[in-house]
């Protein structure tokens, strides 16, 4: 039996038996959970309310007289259903979440404590301003620090995710072009081949045509190719920095200058801000608009279905077009500027692009982000960026022994590998990722960015200790050695130990089953 230094067993040496399947389908205390429609009974209900009597029927004969078709569950059944499902979900609180371009960092418990203060968590968005001065002040303070960290003069707080922030920024660019009378002429947006998919999608949503800029041999924007593509029909460029290859765009100032000279705007995708927060101010790089993924850079990791928040900083040129509502401070009082007309009255912005969200933004995320900033401080935020970059480079240098980095040199916050080390082994990136699941690791980002063949993008973030990183690297190095030793079958069969084995992704994509149908309705249809 494998023991640790204290003589405690660290691994089961029980002989591997081909255990018969269990009668219930459950595996030990891991319950095989059915769909909620299969757990519930349509006739049942979890609440016991008295039949209303009396009252006037105002439905004018439109009363529902058929079953609504929702499953009825008791409270314990409901509770168990969702807790069992949640146990099948992997989370940052269980182990490393090395998804590149996602910054899945630890969410300090302090943030949660602050976010749960009833003055923040129980606030209704329609609460009168006089009763929520503290919350408005919090939004205002967070806005101040976001502007400070980015070196930008304005910030729109309401966008609710990274892509929503992109939309905000691109709409501001469109509005600025319209004000210049050039919206009809400037129809093209440039984006590097390695861009997040949301970049071109956002540009198209705003009515632009997207042209891809190739990467040079070092994985960065090809400046010469960019300059060739610039002209008076270009609205702007969308660049992520550090980019999705985990590399800092060294020519970023030259890129910004070239775009500005051509009369375009520079949108920066801030998804990878964690690598430079506290170190570089995007405002100094010539950025006109950039979203900040509060849920990446300032904790509250997404990916578990949680909310996102994408405040968008704007340059002097785009600030007048910022959306409403925003917080305004005057005579010792915070207020919300809710409409364009109100903005005009304040003399602040008559040109606002209008409203992007029903209310003021993602309050829970604001609270966590400000708590994160306040507890880290200016030096702490810079330290986090340094540690994130150090961790990624540690992973890069250790895995280099067996795996093939996509580019030479150091990386920023994420290490990118291609599938060169798997060449002629018969093992592909997807098989490698599935085998990682068996080893207890959530796979890294696979097959992205597309500029690298069979890409594997690892972002450890600053949250992981050296011990954790060593275990992770050992596991990956062992897998790489196994692949090279020719053990293809083990990879093709993985995952062996997950609740579900290898799923048929092709069938799922070609013939998706998106809706549960009861047996009776299936029979009726037949």
């Amino acid at each position: 039996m494998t023991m640790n230094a204290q003589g405690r067993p660290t691994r089961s040496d029980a002989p591997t038996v081909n255990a018969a399947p269990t009668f219930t389908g459950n595996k030990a205390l891991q319950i095989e959970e059915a769909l909620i429609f299969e757990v519930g009974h349509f006739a049942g209900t979890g609440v016991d309310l008295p039949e209303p009597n009396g009252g006037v029927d105002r439905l004018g004969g439109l009363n529902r007289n058929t079953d609504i078709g929702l499953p009825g569950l008791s409270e314990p059944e409901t509770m168990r259903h969702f807790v069992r499902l949640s146990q099948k979900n992997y989370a940052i609180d269980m182990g490393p979440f090395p998804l590149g371009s996602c910054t899945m960092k630890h969410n300090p418990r302090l943030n949660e404590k602050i976010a749960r203060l009833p003055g923040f968590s129980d606030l209704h968005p329609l609460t009168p301003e006089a009763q929520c001065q503290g919350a408005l002040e919090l939004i205002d303070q967070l806005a101040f620090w976001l502007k400070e960290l980015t070196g930008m003069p304005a910030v729109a707080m309401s966008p609710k995710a990274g892509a929503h922030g992109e939309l905000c920024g691109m709409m501001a660019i469109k509005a600025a072009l319209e004000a210049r009378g050039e919206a009809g002429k400037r129809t093209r947006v440039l984006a590097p081949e390695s861009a997040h998919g949301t970049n071109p999608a956002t540009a198209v949503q705003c009515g632009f045509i997207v042209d891809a800029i190739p990467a040079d041999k070092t994985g960065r924007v090809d400046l010469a190719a960019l300059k060739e593509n610039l002209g008076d029909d270009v609205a702007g460029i969308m660049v992520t920095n550090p980019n999705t290859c985990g590399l800092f765009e060294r020519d970023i100032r030259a890129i910004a200058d070239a775009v500005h000279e051509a009369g375009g705007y520079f949108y920066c995708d801030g998804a990878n801000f964690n690598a430079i927060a506290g170190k570089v101010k995007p405002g100094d790089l010539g950025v006109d608009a950039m979203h900040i993924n509060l849920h990446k850079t300032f904790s509250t990791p997404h990916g578990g279905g949680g909310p996102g928040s994408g405040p968008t900083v704007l340059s002097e040129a785009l600030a007048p077009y910022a959306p409403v509502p925003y917080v305004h401070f005057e005579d010792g009082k915070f207020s919300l500027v809710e409409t364009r007309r109100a903005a005009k009255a304040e003399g602040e912005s008559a040109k606002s692009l209008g409203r992007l969200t029903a209310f003021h933004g993602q309050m829970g995320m604001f609270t966590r982000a400000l708590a994160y900033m306040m507890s880290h401080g200016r030096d702490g935020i810079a330290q986090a960026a340094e540690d994130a970059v150090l961790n990624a480079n540690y992973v890069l240098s250790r895995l280099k022994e067996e795996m093939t980095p996509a580019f030479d040199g150091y990386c920023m916050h994420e290490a990118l590998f291609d599938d060169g080390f798997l060449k002629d082994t018969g093992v592909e990136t997807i098989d490698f990722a599935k085998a990682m699941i068996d080893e207890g690791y959530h796979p890294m980002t696979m097959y992205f960015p597309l500029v690298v063949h069979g890409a594997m993008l690892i972002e450890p973030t600053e949250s992981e200790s050296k011990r954790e990183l060593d275990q992770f690297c050992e596991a990956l190095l062992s897998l790489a050695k196994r692949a090279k030793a020719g053990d293809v079958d083990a990879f093709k069969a993985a995952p062996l130990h997950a609740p579900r084995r290898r799923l048929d992704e092709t069938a799922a994509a070609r013939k998706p089953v998106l809706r549960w149908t009861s047996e009776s309705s299936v029979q009726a249809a037949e």
Partner: protein
Amino acid sequence: MSVKYTKDHEYVRAEGDVYVIGVSKHAAEQLGDVVFVELPDAGKTFTKGEDMAVVESVKAASDVYAPISGEIVEVNAAIVDEPAKVNEDPEGAAWFVKIKASDQSEIDGLMDEAAYATFAAEA
């Protein structure tokens, strides 16, 4: 003429007075299992290099560019219904569109089979 190829892995094959266009066998292999295809409407015109169609696999979504300029005279609806065909016979039954070329000289700029084989092996 025999089959010609672009750097973006489309092929062009003469068939009577039109050109049959699709994605190369190499591209289909690289994409993996194709799960979705979007084709333009017949009658639309494209200039060389424009986004013409979309092909999506379990690994990636890619644009298919017009390898030559011209008007779409026919599209292969069968691959929209059954994207798997693109993996089975990309350079045969699973063609994408047929184009009436507006500039014959554009064909000459494309790679022949041998040049494409070398290009694909290097890429």
